[in-house]
């Protein structure tokens, strides 16, 4: 009990709330559901006399202090509340009746809540504990959302520790604006980066708002969907303490196609030609002497551990409730040097003052420190498998000391060191081996130190005042503060040019976001009518202030600061502001729980837009009919729930991201920035201003059905939607002769349409054995409807490797464009097919699609697109006595990726491996592979996303540890991960950060990883 005392002290210190114990005896018991006798965890047990309470544990067990004559109240969402008078009994088992007719579960809908059964829009609610999200061993809580919600796509586009996944709700509608959903934590709108600073153990529920009718209350920020996060709050009764932890190992998924060895290549060369070239013979000699013949994946995908510790204390009395939590997470990542640490805390406190007033505070500081993998996998993995990391006694004997007299054992090995080798020991052959003058590939990463440090503080104060019964006013003052400090040391040994290239970059940004809002809520029920109205206004402001500098002229690695630099460059400082003001209103109406309607309206004003277009209007309407409430269905055994609903709404998007914060925040003003020539100041035009610029608009229609069969054993919902985004905020290319390359305009139209299914089946519900299956599936089709002057625009992301995308009406926004592969060029025509290791010809024969006898632009066609057609998951949960087992298979199909990694890893650009121009036939039909579908690969996958096996210690045993419940579990992520056969890389989800019109570019990227971990949940 010692630990408990300490924790209690800690909590008392933290919030100065004390709960006093009373003399009484302890009553014990179990709460089960009347319908299936299954224990119900989390039932509120409240002694109405003493106002003390507790809640049931995982097995439905509770104990609470009572004296004879006390009244205990048992309440839980979805069940009829029951009260029992205590008559000196020691045990009290209770079975709660399903509140089937009035499943009064409430969900958060933005500026209020609504009964789930009254919902008319499309939204999904995830209860963290029910879904086991807190048992998934990931550092960022958004990573745990994969496969949980139909229509919310979570892709591990970047695999570094702490990097954010790409979240998309119902496809990509915005071409230039940010397509990430809005994040609202306890009513406070924050940017999506905050997802990296939350601890899953703090979170009670995620409410994912998908259709425009649901998100329109967030107006111009609702177009990409909204993820609302509600953090846990204490319950009335005894203070509970919990400790949650997991520890695991992470391991990268390697690519076999990218795994090269000298032995393999030598064997292939021997088989094909019957002999080995001198160069290959040298490689074989080298690998046999040094014992080093491994792919660089083995070096840079080093694996790592991940661990989390989370302490929580929650409790309260009739008037005051609190929750305090403290978390720590450390993820070593699977790449060399990547590392992510998070420290977070939260205090949430609500208190009632008298009958009319409620005030509260919610305060969450957090700190993250992320060390980056400061290199590019494509660059490192193409390095020779024979190259050692460091020189040792074996490798040093191959060094060309004439050119490199100073190389010593322990130094980084560089390819050029191994050139000019006297292969036959007689001076006849001076054999070269290198294919790059670069330094050792691992040195490029190990000798760099790049970090992101972020301190964030999000918080709000609110006060709520009950004016008359049903009418309340709530005012909130809140905001967030974010300091981001980044630094990047590039050490002396990280570059072939040594100290001359050593540099240190540092940037520091402060961002403050303030919010003040107030709204009235009116609730009224009369004669079967239920009315709920909200009307309010808010004002928000963001301020950015930052500076950065690059130091160079270092002579050593000793002092890695700006002060030690002799030259300072790229010195920048800036201040930006953005203002936002809104008015919003909503009316919800229900008649006899059967006929439902909701209307909402929001008017947003933003400083981004010009005088005439500052404000945008975002209305929505939705209706529902609960057919199963009608007399003719109310007795149906088969169909227990049936709700038909339809919604229509308009939302917007104001976010512009052209890569220049200054012109993105003031696009309606012609801006002049500073530059210089010959040490004289220049003022340079930065943009083509567009005073007419206005809100991007999304119009969505969403009919849907909610259903429940066989006494709601099978429940689910089916949604169809069409989302049409128009007047897109497009950074539209303009003629170069204007002096600019692009200008912001409202242009174009995109439609996403799709079907979503969520299904839960409680297959078996016996007391000792339960089995539940959930299915989530979503299909989305993306189509460009109008692209103004840019229709048919062809773009590339790297003019050196100008593989093309086309943005063509009638097709998905980003479509890969190029020639179609006919056949490979036979090896006999390739000049030097076996060097370097893993190398392939860069060219290929392509098809003459229009049959005109020559290959030109007219033979190019659309080669695929990066958007999946189907994303699904199937989750099974089993519970047998104290054991539980769950696993989720998740998959994505129909997306393609342009894997430029192939060009690097297979060394496509190597001129030595070109075809022989004098012997090769039909050279007019040859094109570089990167311009063809040779590198367009199927990005589909099926993964065993999670597999968790848990065990709840029996209560007696748990008590021995001083715990009220004690659960241990083992979990694995991505234990199985299948990709399409033509995919050569290590992560089909990895996508480089390019524009929305050139999406789907992968340059080797970073790997998917497997995690195996064990965890612990203890409650006192």
């Amino acid at each position: 009990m010692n630990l408990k005392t300490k924790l209690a002290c800690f909590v008392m210190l933290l919030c100065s709330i004390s709960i006093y114990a009373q003399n009484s005896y302890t009553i014990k018991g179990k709460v089960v559901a009347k319908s299936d006798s299954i224990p119900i965890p989390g039932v509120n047990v409240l002694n109405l006399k003493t106002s003390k309470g507790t809640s049931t544990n995982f097995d439905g067990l509770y104990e609470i202090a009572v004296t004879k004559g006390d009244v205990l109240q048992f309440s839980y969402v979805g069940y009829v509340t029951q009260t029992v008078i205590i008559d000196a009994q020691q045990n009290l088992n209770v079975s709660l009746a399903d509140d089937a007719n009035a499943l009064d579960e409430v969900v958060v809908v933005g500026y209020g809540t609504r009964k789930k059964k009254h919902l008319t829009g499309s939204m999904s609610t995830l209860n963290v504990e029910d879904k086991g999200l807190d048992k998934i061993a990931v550092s960022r809580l958004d990573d745990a959302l994969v496969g949980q919600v139909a229509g919310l796509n979570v892709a591990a586009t970047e695999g570094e520790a702490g990097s954010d996944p790409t979240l998309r709700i119902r496809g990509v509608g915005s071409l230039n604006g940010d397509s990430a959903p809005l994040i609202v934590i306890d009513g406070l709108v924050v940017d999506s980066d905050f997802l990296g600073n939350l601890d899953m153990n703090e979170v009670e529920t995620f409410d994912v708002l998908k259709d425009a009718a649901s998100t329109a209350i967030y107006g111009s920020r609702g177009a990409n969907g909204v993820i609302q996060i509600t953090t846990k709050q204490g319950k009335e009764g005894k203070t509970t303490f919990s400790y949650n932890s997991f520890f695991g190992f992470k391991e990268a998924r390697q690519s076999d196609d990218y795994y090269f060895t000298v032995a393999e290549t030598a064997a292939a060369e021997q088989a094909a030609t019957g002999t080995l070239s001198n160069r290959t013979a040298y490689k074989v000699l080298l690998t046999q002497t040094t014992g080093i013949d491994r792919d660089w994946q083995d070096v840079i995908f080093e694996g790592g551990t991940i661990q989390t510790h989370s302490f929580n204390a929650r409790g309260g009395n009739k008037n005051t409730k609190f929750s305090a939590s403290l978390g720590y997470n450390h993820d070593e990542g699977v790449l060399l040097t990547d590392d992510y640490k998070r420290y977070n805390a939260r205090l949430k406190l609500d208190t009632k003052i008298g009958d009319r007033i409620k005030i509260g505070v919610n305060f969450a500081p957090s700190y993250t420190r992320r060390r980056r993998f400061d290199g590019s996998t494509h660059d490192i993995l193409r390095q020779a498998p024979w190259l050692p990391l460091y020189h040792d006694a074996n490798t040093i004997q191959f060094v060309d000391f004439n050119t490199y007299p100073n190389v010593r054992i322990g130094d980084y090995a560089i390819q050029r060191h191994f050139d000019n080798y006297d292969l036959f020991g007689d001076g006849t052959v001076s054999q070269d081996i290198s294919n790059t003058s670069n330094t050792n590939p691992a040195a490029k990463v190990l000798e760099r130190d790049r970090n992101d440090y972020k301190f964030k503080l999000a918080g709000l104060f609110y006060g709520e005042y009950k004016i008359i019964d049903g009418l309340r006013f709530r005012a909130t003052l809140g905001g967030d503060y974010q300091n981001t400090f980044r630094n990047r040391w590039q050490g002396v040994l990280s570059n072939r040019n040594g100290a001359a290239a050593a540099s240190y970059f540092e940037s520091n940004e402060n961002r403050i976001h303030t919010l003040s809002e107030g709204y009235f809520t009116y609730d009224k029920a009369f004669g079967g009518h239920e009315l709920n109205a909200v009307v309010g206004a808010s004002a928000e402001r963001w301020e950015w202030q930052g500076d950065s500098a690059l130091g160079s002229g270092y002579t050593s690695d000793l002092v890695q600061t700006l002060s030690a630099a002799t030259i300072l460059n790229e010195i920048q400082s800036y201040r930006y502001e953005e203002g936002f003001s809104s008015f919003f209103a909503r009316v919800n109406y229900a008649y006899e729980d059967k006929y439902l309607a909701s209307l909402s309206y929001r008017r947003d004003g933003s400083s981004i837009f010009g005088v005439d277009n500052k404000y945008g209007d975002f209305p929505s309407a939705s209706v529902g009919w609960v057919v199963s409430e009608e007399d003719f269905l109310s007795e149906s055994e088969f169909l227990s729930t049936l709700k038909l609903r339809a919604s229509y709404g308009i939302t917007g998007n104001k976010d512009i991201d052209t890569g220049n914060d200054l012109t993105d925040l003031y696009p309606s003003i012609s801006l002049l920035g500073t530059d210089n020539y010959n040490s004289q100041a220049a003022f340079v035009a930065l943009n083509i201003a567009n005073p007419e610029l206005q809100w991007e608009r999304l119009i969505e229609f969403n009919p849907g059905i909610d259903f429940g069969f066989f006494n709601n054993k099978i429940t689910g919902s089916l949604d169809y939607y069409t989302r049409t985004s128009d007047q897109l905020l497009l950074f539209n290319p303009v003629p170069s002769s204007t002096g600019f390359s692009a200008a912001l305009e409202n242009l174009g139209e995109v439609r996403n349409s799709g079907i979503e299914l969520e299904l839960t089946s409680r297959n078996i519900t016996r007391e000792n054995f339960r089995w539940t299956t959930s299915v989530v599936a979503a299909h989305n089709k993306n189509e460009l409807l109008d692209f103004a002057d840019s229709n048919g625009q062809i773009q590339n992301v790297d003019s050196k490797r100008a593989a093309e995308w086309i943005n063509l009406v009638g097709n998905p926004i980003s479509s890969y464009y190029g020639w179609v592969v006919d056949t490979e060029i036979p090896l006999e025509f390739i000049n030097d097919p076996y060097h370097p290791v893993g190398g392939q010809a860069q060219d290929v024969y392509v098809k003459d699609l229009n049959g005109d006898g020559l290959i030109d632009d007219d033979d190019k066609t659309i080669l695929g697109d990066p958007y999946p057609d189907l994303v699904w998951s199937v989750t099974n949960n089993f519970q047998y006595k104290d054991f539980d087992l769950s696993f989720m298979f998740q998959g994505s199909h129909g997306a393609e990726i342009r894997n430029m990694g192939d060009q690097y890893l297979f060394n496509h650009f190597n001129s030595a491996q070109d075809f022989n121009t004098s012997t090769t036939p039909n050279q007019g039909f040859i094109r570089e592979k990167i311009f063809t579908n040779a590198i367009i690969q199927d990005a589909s996958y099926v993964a065993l996303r999670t597999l968790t096996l848990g065990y709840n210690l029996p209560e007696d045993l748990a008590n021995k540890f001083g715990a009220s419940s004690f659960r241990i579990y083992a979990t694995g992520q991505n234990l199985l991960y299948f990709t399409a056969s033509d995919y050569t890389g290590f992560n089909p989800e990895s996508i480089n950060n390019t524009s929305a019109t050139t999406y789907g570019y992968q340059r080797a990227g970073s790997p998917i990883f497997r995690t195996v971990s064990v965890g612990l949940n203890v409650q006192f």
Partner: protein
Amino acid sequence: MKHLKYIGFLMLVISFQSCHEDLLEPIPEAAVSSENYFLNDDQIETGVIAIYDAIQGVNSTNLNDNRGVQHEYYVTEMRSDNTRTKNQEGEAAQFESYAITANNGIVENYYRSCYSTIFRANLVLENLGNASETMSPIFEGEAKFARAYSYFQLVRLFGDVPLIDRTITPQEDEIAFTRVATATIYELIVSDLETAAANLSNGEYTRASKAAAEALLAKVHLTLGNYLDAQVLCENLMNYGYTLEPNFNDIFYSEGNNEVIFVIAYTQGIEADSQDFSAEFMNGVGRTVGVNYVTDDAAAFLDASGGNRTPFSYRIDPLQPTQRQVVKYLPNGEDGGDNGNVFESDATLSGNDWVVLRYADVLLMHVEAILAGNQETSNAAAIASFQMIRDRAGLTDAVTSITKQELLDERRAELAFENQRLFDLLRFGEAQAVLSALSTANNYSFTATDLLLPIPQREINLSNGLMTQNPGY
């Protein structure tokens, strides 16, 4: 009202942000709005400096940034018989082998850079009304010089191009994409340069001067075949006090020497004011492994005809002895040590000025003007100018007559790697023959249509059929 204090608190919350009257109209602090700018001489001058800044180009590895003159060697020297890439890699190698595609990012970048200069010049010209009477003609002269310089590059590289003589909006497709005949563009070039020559005086070399305008105009006239006009301008220029620098190497390493007429200036170590081409000419020092390397043909020619200019023009790459590097622009004057690629200063932030016009060029233009398209001349004035160039190179044998080929060769030796060679070959009518021979010898694919660059495919695509491509692309 016992709850008055709470209501008071709520009111406070609501009014918290109402106090920001400018909530929806914040004034940018990190930049200025052009609406209230270019109102006086000082402000307009920052716009004039911005024009040079556009020619100077951004020192960056990002191809979205306008690289300006820093990329000029790709589209000029590397398309001549003088230079090539070191490793024949990537789109940079398209230039030497005459396999340039319309998607080439370097071509696109150079095209855009030229129009960026033209835009900035037009912006100044449109704001001249706010300048003082004293400064207005000077600003006009500088802006028109830069505009003419850009158009001169554009017409010689691309042929017909859109003629933009005012700032235009993206909606003005007709103007933005319609290719105007080179003859019409030359009319603007000549008129702009005549204004510049009339309005400017001498004394500057990092900004436009009367001499710079006249020298450039002389070259324009030579290109157009107006030999007499060119001769008058050159002889005018020979009275301004420019001299040949006695030591050839000093032209490039002694900034502000008496030979240079106009340079694009760079400042060492300052990212916003430095250049990276010096690093790119070295072996693996810049972003590339090495470009603008000297062809065997050019090296052999310089060995035979360069005189004492040869060692100051190219060298054997110390790291790869089979390769040769340009040494007119060694990073900040450093030779890179034994390996030739280790520099004390940051080579990618070099401060070497780019020489656009120098007196030796004027003297040779003088000869060219007198030669007037004929095969040979023994005109004394021409010989005098020619002899000065030869003497400085240590080739002091007396010249008695000058053939067209000798003049072309002398220009090659004198101005090697200064982005003159391609234009010289074109102007002398020798490009077809010389580049065909080069192509045959090296298995390149030169045809007559390669004398013009492709209009960037991006422009063609954006123009919806308004813009036509050059033949052969």
